[in-house]
């Protein structure tokens, strides 16, 4: 790896309190270093903006549900074909790009690390295979544990407490899959829906047949993740997504987890007031208030962007509801004793009351939140819109004039329900953008080498032209440097790079197998011995982040 000096750019590195200062960034051996020799290659970044590479804390880019979404959206991909060119592989784009195109397009956008936010552990082989074929970016995946019948059995035994067996089981599952973190999706609710078309009314509802409640699942698994000291805290997709009045559930979930570290996914979908079945209202300010008093909790927004989207979720119940709204295509899949899955193509329309309100609530979360370290940028790709819409979203945050013009096109009845008409003049600074798109997600993921440009950090750097049109600026970085090598130059990929797999590891007592094996025998179709992913080609190479480090 060659030495490189990025000279004369304005550096935005909020994790190191660097806000637009002119200084050189030196790179050697794939890391940021203090100084390089005079013969190091030089990138002239005068007049440009230098940031760490982007980090996406919540997206859906690999695994069986993503692949099913690709198969379901043939008509959206056929006009967006990339031919192979040199070392670059062919692929298709659209809302759910193929693996290679996903890597290339994230890289072209200046992102260098992406987290696949929901993988059924049974599908770990598939997820790993696809991530291995997603080039240019470093990637990790979160393992679904919120509706796992074996874990339910352990939680029933411990009555919702964090027992040693449960803690070891969580660590075992990460080890068995190569996952990075733990995800709870509608804890208990997916199992209820699968059994009997049921849903979670209160966190104290019992999951039939298991005598556990969503609250116990949150406390037990969230607590286990916290006690294990995993680099990323429990990642929660709360119950009742999209339902009017679900802000009560979300607040109750936050209270249940408060005191422990937790990350709330796509908070926008969980901020609704109103009565179930009635009109949605915004309760974003209330949730932001709660977050403000609880620094141990963070969230990503899950902004919806007007236009086509593809909802892909482990929350099979939500998918069934969306299918009734869209009346179109739907895939429903039951991952035996672990989770569910649903996929529905969906379109967000500016004139539609609900869609405009969802859009407005997302902007409220961004603009009313006091601490950008706590509320991060996501569109829950591809659920609220493609990751390719991030530049437009950044412009909405940075450019008040553009935002007001866009607000005027949305359903005004919905906009009046939000704070957007109250003279909300906040404009994100470049530093704040660097926080919500890089520094905060990396910190929250426990990736100490990412999201900043301090000495020893990974040399993932994005350099932008400082353009007045922020959408254009963030859509086409001037240079993207990945692992110390020039990956993108002026909208063109310069090299093919595999990217790293990131996994985490926590110590556990191997005797937990004695507890798990009989439970597997009772419930799974897969033998316990065959369940863990052992294929070296899938597991290695990987960067392992140790718990508690």
């Amino acid at each position, binding site marked *: 790896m060659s030495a490189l000096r990025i000279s004369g750019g304005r550096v935005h590195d909020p994790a190191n309190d660097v806000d637009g200062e002119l200084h050189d960034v030196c790179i050697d051996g794939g890391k940021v270093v203090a100084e390089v020799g005079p013969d190091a290659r030089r990138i002239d970044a005068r007049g440009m903006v230098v940031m760490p590479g982007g980090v996406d804390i919540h997206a859906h880019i690999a695994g069986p549900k993503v692949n099913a979404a690709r198969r*379901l*959206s*043939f*008509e*959206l991909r*056929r006009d967006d074909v990339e031919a192979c060119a040199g070392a670059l592989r062919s692929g298709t784009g659209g809302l759910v790009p193929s693996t290679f195109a996903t890597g290339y397009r994230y890289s072209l956008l200046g992102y260098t690390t992406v987290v696949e936010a929901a993988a059924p552990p049974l599908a770990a082989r598939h997820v790993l295979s696809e991530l291995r074929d997603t080039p240019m970016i470093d990637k990790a995946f979160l393992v679904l544990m919120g509706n796992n019948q074996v874990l339910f059995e352990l939680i029933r035994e411990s009555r919702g407490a964090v027992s040693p067996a449960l803690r070891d089981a969580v660590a075992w599952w990460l080890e068995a899959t190569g996952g990075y973190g733990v995800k709870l999706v509608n804890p208990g609710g997916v199992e209820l829906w699968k059994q009997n078309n049921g849903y979670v009314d209160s966190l104290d509802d019992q999951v039939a047949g298991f005598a556990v409640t969503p609250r116990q699942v949150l406390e037990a698994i969230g607590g286990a993740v916290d006690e294990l000291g995993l680099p990323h805290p429990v990642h929660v997709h709360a119950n009742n997504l999209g339902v009017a009045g679900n802000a009560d559930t979300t607040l109750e979930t936050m209270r249940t987890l408060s005191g422990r570290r937790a990350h709330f996914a796509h908070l926008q979908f969980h901020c609704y007031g109103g009565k179930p079945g009635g009109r949605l209202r915004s309760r974003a300010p209330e949730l932001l208030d709660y977050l403000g008093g609880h620094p141990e909790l963070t969230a990503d927004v899950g902004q919806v962007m007007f236009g086509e989207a593809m909802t892909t979720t482990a929350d099979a119940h939500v998918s069934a509801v969306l299918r009734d709204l869209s009346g*179109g295509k739907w895939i429903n899949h039951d991952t035996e004793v672990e989770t569910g899955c649903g996929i529905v193509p969906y379109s967000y329309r500016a004139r539609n009351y609900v869609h405009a309100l969802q859009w407005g609530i997302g902007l409220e979360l961004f603009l009313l939140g006091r601490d950008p370290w706590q509320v991060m940028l996501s569109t829950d790709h591809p659920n609220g819109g493609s990751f390719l819409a991030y530049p437009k979203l950044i412009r909405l945050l940075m450019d008040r004039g553009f935002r007001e013009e866009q607000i005027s096109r949305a359903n005004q009845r919905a906009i009046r329900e939000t704070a957007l008409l109250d003279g909300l003049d906040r404009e994100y600074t470049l530093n704040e953008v660097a926080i919500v798109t890089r520094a905060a997600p990396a910190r929250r993921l426990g990736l100490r080498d990412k999201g900043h440009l301090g000495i020893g950090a990974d040399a993932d750097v994005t350099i932008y032209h400082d353009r007045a049109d922020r959408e254009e600026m963030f859509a086409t970085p001037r240079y993207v440097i990945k692992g110390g090598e020039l990956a993108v130059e002026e909208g063109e990929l310069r090299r093919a790079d595999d990217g790293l797999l990131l996994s985490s590891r926590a110590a556990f007592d191997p005797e937990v197998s004695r507890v798990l094996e009989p439970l597997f025998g009772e419930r799974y179709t897969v033998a316990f011995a065959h369940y863990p992913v052992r294929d070296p080609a899938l597991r290695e190479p990987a960067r392992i982040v140790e718990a508690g480090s």
Partner: protein
Amino acid sequence: MTLTLSLRARPPARVIANALIPERLHGIDAAGIAAVNVRCGRETVAVGELFEISGTAGEELVLAGELGRVEGIGARMSGGRVVVEGPCGDHVGARMSGGEIVVRGDAGAWAGAEMSGGLVRISGDAGARAGAAYPGARAGMTGGEIVISGDAGEEAGAGMRRGLMAVGGRAGSGAGLRMLAGTVIALGGIGAEAGIGNRRGSLVSGAPIEPLPGYAFAARYRPPALRLQLRRARELGLDVGGALLRGRWARWSGDRTELGRGEILIFDDEEVL
């Protein structure tokens, strides 16, 4: 002005000829056209290697030779005229929005698929899913006309939303599958399972067929609109006998597993024969 491209030999693999439409070649000289690239299998090949070029590029493009391996002729064109002297491959006229394509021979599958305007005339047979929707898409052709003098393959007009497809011979099984609206006429009759999931479309069979149970007999009458469409088909070169124009047709309403506003019209008048 006419440009003629004559295939030198049968290509070694399938050629994707989307680039060969009058509007894209207009104003380019022979050397320029010879240098246009097309895909041939996994290779990129210059047009000049595959075709002998004569004439001047203008409104009309003539393709000659055994073009069975040449796909997507006239696809996405919006104007002008393409004449294919001989059989051609799949996707002829797919997603076209205007102009005219004449195929003097058989055409492959997906002829006029998802077209929105213009005219495709095929003097021989057409393959499966003429005028149909591509996988994933709900709507097939949304406008324009397809005239097939021979037979049409399976699932002709699947997902069709608007427009006219007229078949001189028989339409294969599954014609009008999940049709939204529009008209498919097959003078020689329709194969099995006509109009499954048809919402508002009209299927017209000039020979007796047995509709599926999703269809209910409604009436026997002389539909005035059909007469206009049959006259149009005759104008476009189909051999529409006077009996069809004068006689009565049985109307079956369906498909009642779907919206049920569609119909199958079956010629049913022995007196005029």
